């Protein structure tokens, strides 16, 4: 601790930074290689007919197929070069640009660990991580200013702490969800299976993970508990590898946790003498560096808290959910259907899979901002097809953390309006009433409530009686309902009930 105390004020051994750079570069290369090998490039980037761009980043697209594949190939190369320490800052910059490009082209692709990779790559463009374990480095090996290490350590600690704070949620604490659900999905595992079936295991794991996230950065930093805590880090993330298919995330977090070890751990691990002199030899870091590191870490600490500005359950409405390190805190699935209405009472029901890939459809059905984006896309497309005064309504039901399905969106809200109507995201409904047989609200898959003029047969008949006959050809059969309407009704139905079968988007 004493050595590290001095180090924090001056220079520190760059060995742990170098080791992290090596591990990080290898993981980036492996991740890109894995994406290519698993054939995920096409379904995630090339097959989608449309994407959900981030606001302000609409210009960012995946580009042609060759460039999309090239990005992943380049990531393999750049990740490897970063591990070797060849022009580390530039290669880290390349990794940052390409990796961030890949996950910012579509909000439906958001993952916390993708964001973490981008942040770490960005930091490595400024951190002198090539001062150790970099045979190809152009710069001489030596100590680095302590704030560089503080920067990365602080970033890693914030990830753990934010993940811990996100677990302070009633579902996690009092219902052991979503771990209970996920454990039961893995109860066929040898040895672990019987344990995973126990409710107590889910509760113990929930509270244990909470305690782990909130304390482990400090326990690894503190020398007396360092070994045990780092062992816990490895054990914890090893368990997540066994239980959950979450890609490189466990390995990435173990690599990050090495930053919390002694700065000289790689030398000790490699059997070399710790470079004690180097730890004291660094120059006093500039005030600019210290200020910059402080500002960055404060901003990183505050940014996830923006979600607290929105009332209601964050896991339900997801306002401010992204880029907040809320890792593995929900199992959420939904079902969405949309009704497009235009002037002249043109009506068409749209299923998400008509335009979206399975991954996009699944993500969209549970995330209100994606739902609204999709509605606005529908509006634009139908307007382009000649429809006027287009409004889009959504019927979206979601199940969150083992609760019964409940409506996410107000079915009467025009989701394509320029300004979203107040209350368009419904509050999370307590599902406890379901056990007492209480009604939890009525699904509106038929959108009957939204189309009162066509919602009741009696009304349709009344209109038919009042309206003059229309030329045939826009009847229900033409709409492809598959149902033969009564001819005298079908031929005289007002436009309100007719789909426009010509529009196929």
């Amino acid at each position, binding site marked *: 601790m004493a050595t590290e105390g001095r180090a924090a004020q001056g220079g520190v051994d760059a060995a742990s930074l170098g080791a992290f750079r090596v591990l990080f570069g290898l993981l980036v290369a492996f991740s890109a290689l894995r994406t290519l090998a698993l054939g*995920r490039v096409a379904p995630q980037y090339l097959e989608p007919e449309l994407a959900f761009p981030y606001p302000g980043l609409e210009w960012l697209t995946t580009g042609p197929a060759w460039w999309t594949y090239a990005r992943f190939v380049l990531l393999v190369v750049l990740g490897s070069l970063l591990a070797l320490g060849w022009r580390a800052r530039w290669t880290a910059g390349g990794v940052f640009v390409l990796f961030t490009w890949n996950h910012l082209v579509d909000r439906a692709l958001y*993952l*916390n*660990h993708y964001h973490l990779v981008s942040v770490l790559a960005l930091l490595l463009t400024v951190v002198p991580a090539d001062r150790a374990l970099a045979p190809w480095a152009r710069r001489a090996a030596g100590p680095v200013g302590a704030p560089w290490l503080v920067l990365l350590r602080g970033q890693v600690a914030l990830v753990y702490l934010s993940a811990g704070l996100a677990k302070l949620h009633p579902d996690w604490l009092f219902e052991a969800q979503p771990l*209970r*659900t*996920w454990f039961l*999905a893995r*109860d*066929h595992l040898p040895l672990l299976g*019987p*344990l995973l*079936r*126990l409710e107590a295991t889910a509760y113990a794991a929930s509270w244990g993970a909470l305690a782990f996230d909130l304390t482990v950065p400090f326990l690894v930093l503190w020398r007396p508990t360092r070994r045990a805590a780092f062992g816990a880090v490895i054990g914890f993330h090893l368990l997540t590898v066994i239980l*959950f298919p*979450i*890609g*490189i*995330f466990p390995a990435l977090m173990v690599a990050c946790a090495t930053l919390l070890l002694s700065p000289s751990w790689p030398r000790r691990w490699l059997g070399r003498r710790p470079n004690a002199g180097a730890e004291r030899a660094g120059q006093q870091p500039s005030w600019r560096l210290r200020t910059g590191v402080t500002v960055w870490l404060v901003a990183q600490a505050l940014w996830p808290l923006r979600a607290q500005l929105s009332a209601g359950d964050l896991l339900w409405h997801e306002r401010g959910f992204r880029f907040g390190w809320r890792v*593995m805190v929900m199992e959420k*699935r939904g*079902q969405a259907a949309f009704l497009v209405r235009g002037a002249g009472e043109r009506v068409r*029901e749209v299923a998400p899979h008509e335009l979206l890939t399975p*991954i996009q459809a*699944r993500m969209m059905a549970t995330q209100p901002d994606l739902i609204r984006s999709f509605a606005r896309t529908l509006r634009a497309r139908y307007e382009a097809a000649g429809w006027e005064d287009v409004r889009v309504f959504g019927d979206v*039901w*979601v*199940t969150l953390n*083992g*609760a*019964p*399905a409940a409506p996410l969106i107000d079915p009467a809200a025009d989701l394509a309006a320029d300004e979203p109507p107040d209350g368009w995201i419904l509050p999370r409904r307590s*599902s*406890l009433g*379901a*056990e007492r047989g209480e009604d939890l609200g*009525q*699904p*509106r*898959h*038929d*959108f*009957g409530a939204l*189309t009162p003029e066509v*919602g*009741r*047969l*009696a009304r*349709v*008949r009344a209109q038919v009686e009042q309206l003059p006959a229309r030329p045939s050809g826009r009847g*229900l059969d033409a709409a*492809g*309902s598959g*149902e*033969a309407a*009564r001819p005298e*009704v079908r031929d005289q*139905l007002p436009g309100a009930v*007719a*789909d426009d079968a010509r529009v196929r988007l």
Partner: protein
Amino acid sequence: MTPRPRWWLPLLLAPLFACGGGSASGEELRREVLRSLTDELLLPSVEALGRDAHALAEACDALAAAPGSATLADARERFRGLRATWRRGEVCVLGPLEATLVALRVDTPLDRGALEACLADATPIDANYAAGLGYGAKGFEALAALLFEGEPDARERALAQHAAAELGVGIDGIVAAWTRAGGLADDLRDPGPGRAFADADAGVDALVRRAVVLVQDARDRELAPLVGGTSKGVVQVLPADFDRARQHRLDLIERFRGLRLLYAGGEPGSEAAEGAGRGLSALIARVSARSDAAVRAALSRAVEAMERMPAELEAASRDDAPELRAAYDASTHVKTHLGVTVVSTLGTTLGFALADGD
């Protein structure tokens, strides 16, 4: 150096052995549910279907041989009995294509034109003649029209006789597909490679998908026309010759009863349906008791809503009877719970993620 005793090792391993004989794993439970549903619900339903089909054929034989109010009443009663069994057990129509095809054919919507052409034809009706007819003129709905739309004349009785026989043959196909050695019952009871269901997941998946299809069909095809509900944005209207046999409401009641049976594993209050039940309920309840309660409540409300519908459906539809809207909404609720709550809960169990999620 003497190694220190690892006193903590037994403590660490104890829970593994302590709970080893505890509750069944998800895979074991799925197999248990499939066995239970097959032996206590599906197979008995299929066997009852065969018995009722033969009873109807015999009653129609009797009606043709000795026309009269007694034989007609008996034929009608047998038809109602078979129809109830059929609608309650429609979930059995799954798996191998042969059974599905047979089912689709016998339950073809009435082709009024074909039926009237057949009745106006002078050719004597015999087995060969009936075999040449489409199921729109000899399936369930055609038979209902023959038996319930007034007193059948000689030609109608003859057609009913042969239609009932044809229906019996079609249903025999379903029964055979289930009961023969290595048939659907065996496949569902003990799924595995080389069988209709490669594993327990596939068996459960088939049952859930079948249930979702049935509730969607009830809602879009049978209930939506009553309330002017929409399907794919298109309003549904009643056909001109709607429900002359007064069978529509009974059909809906039995379909939702069948879905409730499948979910709960038995009739409400029965031992099989107690607690988490022996049906699909058991799979949901182990993950979320709240979700299980919600699905059960939705199904029970749907059955009650169907039962509350007036017998005169066309008149009720014209009068905008609130019971019809309640039934329609209840069916939509069941559809949502089966499609979202059940599928999501089982989906978590059957396939974790489409990508690397965190």
